[in-house]
């Protein structure tokens, strides 16, 4: 096509500038809602720019104009063909009481799978320590867990000095960040088709099972419950939810029984795994505080029965929250699926260039 470039540029540039202005406003979120006229005008400007791009694509002398138009058309295309529901910035409370528990329940099978792997690990760790107590160093590579449970309990109960004095806050921060890192890794390893996630969950289960059996065999069940329950009832479910997120990712990668493409499957779950991992981080903040400020204190400072009761109340509230929260609103207004099966109409491909 032979065109008079100077005239073409002079005629079309005002329309491109107008389109760019609209796009800038949309980017800056200054256009909350467009009127029908504005939408029609926006669509017209997009189609005009797209048509201009088609005209100028083969025109050698204006590579800058072509790039500019490509960028403009690309931005407008993203705005016009974006079909994912635009949610208002969810208030934190709304997200916490509705989105997170609803997301958790929507993928409950992955959570059960995560629990099953951890329980298998617990059973393995428990049986191993029961049959071969000498394997303790291999199963629990933490020095403070290697000593005899009865001896440790005696030391802790007769301690005259608070070993965490002046360090509780920093200890709490260490616990929060370390556990959150492990949780993110558990999620991220879902990209190994779930193998890494399963290994981490199983290993976590081995440690929990081994510690539990070690203390029960030593007759320190009450100490064990008082020590682990206050933070464990939050921390362990948090790791299980991180495992759930990792398994959701793995299942999307594998795609059993789904006839949609890998990209579509990953799009479906991307928002959900982010929701879950943010929820896990919140739970671990709470667990970190409790572990530093309560779990490390034993009788006679804090009665075991009080700590166990506190842990059970937490567990009940957590179950109530994950199982029931957000159900009422769901009955009224069904929550939008994570990413409604959106497939833009265009076709894409990637091709190597010289």
């Amino acid at each position, binding site marked *: 096509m032979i065109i008079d470039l100077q005239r073409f540029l002079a005629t079309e540039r005002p329309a491109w500038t107008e389109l760019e202005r609209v796009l800038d406003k949309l980017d800056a979120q200054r256009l909350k809602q467009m009127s029908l006229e504005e939408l029609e005008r926006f669509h017209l400007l997009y189609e005009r720019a797209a048509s201009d791009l088609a005209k100028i694509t083969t025109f050698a002398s204006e590579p800058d104009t072509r790039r500019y138009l490509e960028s403009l058309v690309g931005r407008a295309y993203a705005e016009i063909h974006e079909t994912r529901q635009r949610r208002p910035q969810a208030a934190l409370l709304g997200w916490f009481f509705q989105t997170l528990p609803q997301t958790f329940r929507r993928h409950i099978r992955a959570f059960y799978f995560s629990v099953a792997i951890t329980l298998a690990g617990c059973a393995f760790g428990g049986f191993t320590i029961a049959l071969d107590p000498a394997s303790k160093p291999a199963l629990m590579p933490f020095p403070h867990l290697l000593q005899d449970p009865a001896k440790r309990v005696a030391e802790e109960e007769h301690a005259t000095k608070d070993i965490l004095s*002046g360090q509780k806050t920093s200890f709490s921060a260490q616990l*929060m*960040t370390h556990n959150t890192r492990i949780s*993110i890794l558990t999620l991220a390893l879902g*990209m190994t088709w779930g193998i890494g996630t399963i290994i981490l969950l199983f290993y976590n289960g081995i440690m929990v099972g081994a510690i539990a059996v070690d203390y029960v065999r030593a007759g320190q069940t009450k100490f064990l419950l008082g020590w682990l329950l206050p933070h464990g009832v939050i921390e362990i479910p948090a790791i299980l939810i991180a495992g759930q997120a990792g398994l959701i990712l793995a299942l999307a990668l594998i795609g059993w029984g789904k006839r949609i493409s890998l990209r579509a499957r990953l*799009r479906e779950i991307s928002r959900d795994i982010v929701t879950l991992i943010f929820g896990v981080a919140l739970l671990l903040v709470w667990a970190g505080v409790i572990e530093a400020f309560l779990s490390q204190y034993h009788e006679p400072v804090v009665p075991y029965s009080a700590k166990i009761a506190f842990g059970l109340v937490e567990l009940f509230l957590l179950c109530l929250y994950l199982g029931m929260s957000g159900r009422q609103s769901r009955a009224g207004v069904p929550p939008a699926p994570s990413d409604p099966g959106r497939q833009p109409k265009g076709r894409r491909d990637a091709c190597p260039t010289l």
Partner: protein
Amino acid sequence: MKTATLRVHTPEGIVFSQLLAGPVTRFLAWSLDLLCIIAMLTALGILFGLLQMLSANIASALYILSYFIISVGYGIACEWAWRGQTVGKRLFRLRVVDAEGLKLQFHQIATRNLLRFVDSLPIFYFLGGIVCWFSSRCQRLGDIAANTIVIRHPRIAQPDLDQLLAGKFNSLRLYPHLAARLRQRVSPAEAAVAAQALVRREQFDPIPRLDLFANLASHFREKVEFPAEASDGIADEQYIRNVVDVLYRTKS
């Protein structure tokens, strides 16, 4: 270095392409981001060092939390605030975009950044780099999971041809219809090669310079055949000058 373009075909039948960033450029951008993170942590270390005089416990806790938030949240915060860019990406003119040309969403940014934990295994993004190298869209694992790509938009500097071409008679301009056909048939890449050859002509040794312009002239002569009086007797280099003049300067 691996480079590729992502072509998006819109329902209107328009195709636009985006240059994909290769693993090496991305690694360099990440190295710069790492320096930014280190600088921020160093500044915080000094700040919390002063705070330690008031409470060592609180200062230490704040540093641990800040370290975690900055190291994990830097990419998320920057890419969300700057629409897919971090400091390193800005300097290397890279941008994270949706793999299908759609609007980048927060959960995509969060996913690709959280999955850095697996991409960075065992050290220095080895796994992510390998995956990126072999991926047709130069995606690391985080990009695959989040459905994102990293594109680059290099600054295109128009050669300053005015000084090079000004005041010279151009015989090709005597045939405006053929000049227009030449502009239509020559691709932007071909035009850029001819312009670069002219701009850098003094850097070539005499014989390679003659060969280069002979090849270019022969290539452009095949594109559009001008009458003999317009092209005969002109040196190859002058012929290329005329071609570039026609392509880049639409007004004589």
